[in-house]
């Protein structure tokens, strides 16, 4: 059919398939294989065409799912293989366990005393020692003056009336990440939430520890000063004080660090021993 306005030239026929995005164009767009001008044309069309936007969305989802599902791996012999990625084990159950442990952690921390008495103390020391032996994360093996990880106990402490709120879930997830040394994730999770009461204290000391592990010492020191670690039972109290000491020292607050070190030297136990070794140097 000729178009009079075209001066006798035949008007181009619309393709049978219509005026929509093809798989090939979509593929080229997703893989950044179009020029700027071509990309602009295509994106402008997609923005105004619901059918193409839906198709494009499907392809984006498919591509990102592929990247989440498979990884190309290079073996030591230079051989190429693919592996199907799986999310780390369903954390729901372990999150619930950690929430339960949060609940009971506080009571344990409150019931235990920093200066243990004979009799009750012996039993509590045995329990604490057993927990520490079983559950303490691997030592970093560093020098005496370096940081230590706080313990995260996956079993048995109850916070009264704790609800499984989003805040407690976030704190639990943050502590689980901390326990796995996923420090940046722990910081993201613990920082993005806020809680109240006991939960907030736990959040702050673990967040401070994680921050110190990533050398954000000033922030760690500020957080720890706000919770008064000396009021917490061991090992959290003494180790948080140790974290505070390292954070003060590393953030240039030497006078405060020295003052705290002198106090720590008066402590019994591992932190006291560590402080005394540092001071002897």
């Amino acid at each position: 059919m000729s178009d009079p306005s075209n001066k006798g030239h035949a008007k181009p026929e619309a393709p049978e398939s219509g005026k929509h995005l093809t798989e090939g164009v979509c593929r080229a767009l997703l893989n950044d294989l179009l020029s700027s001008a071509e990309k602009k044309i295509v994106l402008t069309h997609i923005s105004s065409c619901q059918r193409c936007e839906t198709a494009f969305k499907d392809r984006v989802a498919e591509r990102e799912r592929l990247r989440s599902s498979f990884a190309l791996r290079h073996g030591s012999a230079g051989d190429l293989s693919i592996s199907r990625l799986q999310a780390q084990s369903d954390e729901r159950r372990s999150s619930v366990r950690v929430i339960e442990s949060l609940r009971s952690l506080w009571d344990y921390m409150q019931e235990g005393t920093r200066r243990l008495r004979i009799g009750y103390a012996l039993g509590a020391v045995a329990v604490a020692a057993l927990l520490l032996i079983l559950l303490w994360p691997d030592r970093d093996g560093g020098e005496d003056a370096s940081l230590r990880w706080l313990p995260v106990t996956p079993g048995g402490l109850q916070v009264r009336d704790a609800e499984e709120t989003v805040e407690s879930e976030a704190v639990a997830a943050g502590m689980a990440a901390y326990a796995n040394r996923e420090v940046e994730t722990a910081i993201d999770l613990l920082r993005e939430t806020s809680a109240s009461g006991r939960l907030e204290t736990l959040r702050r000391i673990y967040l401070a520890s994680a921050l110190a592990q990533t050398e954000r010492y000033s922030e760690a020191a500020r957080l720890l000063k706000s919770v008064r670690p000396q009021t917490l039972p061991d090992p959290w109290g003494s180790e948080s004080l140790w974290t505070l000491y390292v954070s003060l020292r590393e953030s240039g607050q030497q006078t405060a660090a020295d003052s705290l070190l002198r106090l720590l030297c008066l402590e019994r136990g591992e932190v006291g021993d560590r402080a005394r070794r540092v001071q002897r140097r």
Partner: protein
Amino acid sequence: MSPIMSLAQSMNLNWLTGFQEYCRVLQRPSGAPSRENAREKAWLLLNSAFSQYLRFHSSRMGSVSREDLEDIAADKSLDLIRRIELLAWEPTERSPSEITGYLSKVARNGLVDRLRELGRWVEVATEDQPEWDPDLTVLEASYDPRIPPDSPSSRLERKEFTDALRGCAEELEPRSRIIWFLRVLCQHSSKEIATHPQVSIRASHVDVILHRARQALQECMRGKGCEPSDMPAGTFVELWESCRLDDALATSRVRK
């Protein structure tokens, strides 16, 4: 042929041109720079193509689960990458229709094998029926980029919303933004999001971060007088561009 039509056809073949370029890099001596990047990009392109051809063939021969299709596409892509590197297959010397025809055949054979395993394949007297090898024009239907007219008011509404949402999304931490995008716009599960190379956290952490991201976006959008649920057409493209998911290819590498 009008310039617009020829532009459409050339865009349709861009991915093949790109694929051939990556193959040239792969066929260089081992240790050549950007080889790993080329390998990953070629693998993604092949995967995408195989996925398309598998969908086409499974609509005619018998369907299998999405996971089976993904496995077939991934396996066949890897196999071809290996063959390219060993010079057992040289797509750099082939025409577009030869390449797509070959890929379609490989996809079809992979599907047949899987259907046989599942006991769903009915043997036929002769293989290679002509209709099983669709040519390029069937598989890659022509695209006419003539843009339908858009009313000024809808353009303005869309622009206001997308500007607001893009601004709010860009206030999120990069990982939170990507998690939100993959869940809300791509409908990925927490497990899928958790293993995405730009996320790489546990699935339960995804849920927590997503919850916070949604809250933050809702508050931000309401502050700008927009309801997040009223997403007009065109929003997806804007957000896809702002998330820069494809930038990950510049940083992710074949994992050792």
